[in-house]
């Protein structure tokens, strides 16, 4: 009964979403005030309908209703409750419902909290979101229905993929999807602005919090996914340039560019068309990322299985959404004239530079990811593009980005001089240079460059804050007062940049990782990374839906034991799959990482031992970045809300 109600709610949601879309987009043109008010109300009911469908699906998973095909295929009564819940979005059909649920949540949020928007703009934004949602709901309902019944039901489900039975992965998709889908709001604002034919500072101020919030989610989602692959897959790597990873990186890159560019629209009313294009591009990348992966075109390790007819349906949807918005862009955007002009050396130019580098990186990643299928199509050759290509092309583009991102925030708007800005960060430059020289001698140039770049970005962000507060240049009380008076957006930007610097240092540190594979008999010791690793014994241990063999390892420094690690091999009885559960010990600045790879017939344990200097900083940096974004979101000027359009106009006139 409940699954039928869910199915019905899904069908209702399709109708409500299309109504929301059509009314929202056309009501403002007809100057029908009642219809314009109807769009937000429809957005709320559309959200409730999908919410009901989503809950029904989760309910079927929780009570292990194996008459629902989706539950029978991807869940099992032996799986712990949390994975029965997360299992609902661990497969193609269920993840579509989650995706649509988040999209409708975005629409409902704009509808509820968009009270300060002009009624016509709000109706149009909500309308665009409704149309997009309607398309994907129709797809879910017709060709990937998660509520399909199965009769007779199997005695037990096929179970959740053991690799996915992990807290990191239970929360990775919702966070990542919120990031992806959140950019739909910036997209809807861009489309609404193109329809209205006007885009001003107030628009920039409305869009930015949405872009920022989605960016925070996307950043955390990517960091979470990377962390998960690091600690569960047991490969000891954190980024593999897999198409799915690239698919998440692309919207992150263009979304980061969008964040920076929206500031220019907000403060200076310049770069309008480019900002609109970035908003369209970011959401288009999000869509293509989520869906091309499902079409099977890209060769990836973590794709969902989906039939090619689903692929065609998706392609048509993408074509309408992306193609339609780009047609609108081609017709309307040339009329968006820039109001502010700026000199070659200014904050605006620095942000343009940031955009150029980020877009170039995005272009390289895009080309590398799509080159194999297109090369096959155009030239009839089979090839693969892997990590060597990406490492060699992305690095040279990231280096100047790092160099510039430290200087940009120091430049004033409109017209600036480079020298005073550089004088403020001479200390950061000097320290980075020392790090570069010392580390080049001690390790290698690439590692040294990464570490120095990280130090450079972190220290210049800190010295910028210190300079603004006039720290060490007068009475301390004065400085503290200034620190308190600084807008939160300034701290947010500083944390965002510091987080990036920390992440770069983590990545650079990982190049110094040491690892080895050894077979140890109980009692034997091996040396790695300056520590002695002793295998004490191998024993059995019970688990909820798996049995496991655990290796007991003691790590000692100079003969003094300081750590016990317990990597295990888990045997999942339902799926007959073995996973290696890595044991990782971190002290915040390095990881000691042990994997129990195999039990050789001759006895003992085959272990993979790793020492990863600075590895935690990769994810820690991602979290700091997301924190910076949230800090910036809580800034007064966004919290209080954008002033009405007229007020903004008046301000510009007097400025």
């Amino acid at each position: 009964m409940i699954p039928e109600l869910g199915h019905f709610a899904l069908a209702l949601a399709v109708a409500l979403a299309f109504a929301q879309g059509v009314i929202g987009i056309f009501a403002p043109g007809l100057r029908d005030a009642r219809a314009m008010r109807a769009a937000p109300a429809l957005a709320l009911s559309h959200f409730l309908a999908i919410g009901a469908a989503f809950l029904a699906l989760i309910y079927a998973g929780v009570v292990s209703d194996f008459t629902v095909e989706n539950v029978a295929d991807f869940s099992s009564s032996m799986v712990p409750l949390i994975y029965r819940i997360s299992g609902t979005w661990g497969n193609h059909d269920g993840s579509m419902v989650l995706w649509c649920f988040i999209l409708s949540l975005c629409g409902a949020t704009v509808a509820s909290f968009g009270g300060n928007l002009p009624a016509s703009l709000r109706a149009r934004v909500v309308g665009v979101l409704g149309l997009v949602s309607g398309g994907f709901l129709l797809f879910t309902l017709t060709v990937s229905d998660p509520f399909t019944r199965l009769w007779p039901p199997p005695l037990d489900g096929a179970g959740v993929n053991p690799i996915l039975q992990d807290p990191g992965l239970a929360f990775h998709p919702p966070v990542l999807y919120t990031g992806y889908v959140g950019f739909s709001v910036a997209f809807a604002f861009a489309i609404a602005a193109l329809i209205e034919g006007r885009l001003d500072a107030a628009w920039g101020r409305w869009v930015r919090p949405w872009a920022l919030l989605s960016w925070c989610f996307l950043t955390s989602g990517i960091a979470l996914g990377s962390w998960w692959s690091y600690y569960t897959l047991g490969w000891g790597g954190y980024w593999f340039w897999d198409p799915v990873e690239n698919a998440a990186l692309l919207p992150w890159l263009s979304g980061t560019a969008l964040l920076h560019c929206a500031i220019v629209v907000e403060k200076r009313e310049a770069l309008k068309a480019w900002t609109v294009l970035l908003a369209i591009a970011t959401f288009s990348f999000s869509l293509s990322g989520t869906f091309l992966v499902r079409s099977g075109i890209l060769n990836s390790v973590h794709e969902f299985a989906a039939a090619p007819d689903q692929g065609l349906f998706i392609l048509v949807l993408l074509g309408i959404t992306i193609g339609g918005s780009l047609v609108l862009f081609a017709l309307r955007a040339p009329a968006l004239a820039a109001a502010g002009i700026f000199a070659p050396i200014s904050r605006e130019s620095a942000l343009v530079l940031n955009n150029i580098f980020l877009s170039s990186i995005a272009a390289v990643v895009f080309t590398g990811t799509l080159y194999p299928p297109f090369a096959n199509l155009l030239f009839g050759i089979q090839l693969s593009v892997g990590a060597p290509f990406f490492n060699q092309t992305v690095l040279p583009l990231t280096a100047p980005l790092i160099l510039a991102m430290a200087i940009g925030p120091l430049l004033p708007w409109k017209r600036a001089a480079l020298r005073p800005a550089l004088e403020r960060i001479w200390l950061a430059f000097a320290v980075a240079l020392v790090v570069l020289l010392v580390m080049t001698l001690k390790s290698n140039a690439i590692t040294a460059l990464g570490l120095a770049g990280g130090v450079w970005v972190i220290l210049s962000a800190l010295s910028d804050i210190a300079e603004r507060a006039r720290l060490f240049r007068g009475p301390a009380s004065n400085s503290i007062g200034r620190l308190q008076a600084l807008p939160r957006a300034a701290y947010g930007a500083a944390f965002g940049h510091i987080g990036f610097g920390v992440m770069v240092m983590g990545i650079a540190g990982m190049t110094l990782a040491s690892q080895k594979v050894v077979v140890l008999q109980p009692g034997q010791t091996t040396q790695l990374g300056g520590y002695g690793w002793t295998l004490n014994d191998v024993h059995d241990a019970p688990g909820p839906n798996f049995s496991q063999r655990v290796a007991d390892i003691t790590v000692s420094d100079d003969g003094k034991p300081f750590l016990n690690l317990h990597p295990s091999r888990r045997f999942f009885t339902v799926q007959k799959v073995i996973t290696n559960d890595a044991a990782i010990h971190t002290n915040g600045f390095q990881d000691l990482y042990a994997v129990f790879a195999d039990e050789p017939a001759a006895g003992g344990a085959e272990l993979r031992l790793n020492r990863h200097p600075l590895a935690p900083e990769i994810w820690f940096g991602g979290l700091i970045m997301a924190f910076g974004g949230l800090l910036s979101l809580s800034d007064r000027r966004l919290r209080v809300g954008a002033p009405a359009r007229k007020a903004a106009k008046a301000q510009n006139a007097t400025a």
Partner: protein
Amino acid sequence: MDTRRKLLFAAPFFAAVASGAGFYTILRRMQDEKYDPHALPSPLIGHKPPAFTLPGINNQAGFSNTDLLAPARPMLVNWFASWCVPCVEEAPMLGALAKSGLPIWGIAYQDTPGAVATYLQEYGNPFTRLANDASGLTAINWGFYGVPETYLIDRQGIVRWRWAGALDADVVAQNLTPLLNRYS
């Protein structure tokens, strides 16, 4: 508004249309089973390796593509790295193949001579000759996927087979041995 500006703003649309058409064709070809994105055949199969000259390690001579033109018997080229875990796993298999008389030439990928020497000391050296691709550029020309990777080269110097990943007993028995019999 001048035409150039209009064209510029329409460019994203045309780019999207072109890629959309591309994706459509690819999807159709996948349905007709003319294209399999999961197949990972090397572009080198049926061809000679692209031109390269790589230095050796620790004052030994390296080798170049001309050395691979006409081997006396079929041989393997194995890409490895001291930092690569699956390479360690396949080391015993490479050792066994070398012992059986199959020449294996090794190319160290993005590695330092010191680390390679330690690695070979620890896990055995199955290689007849050894070269070092420190920059990784030759690897890109080979259509390299990731270490370890093994190529079979026949007596005419033509690449007949590529295996991305560690060689184990199954792969050797099912894939390599029949090919060795055919080309020797």
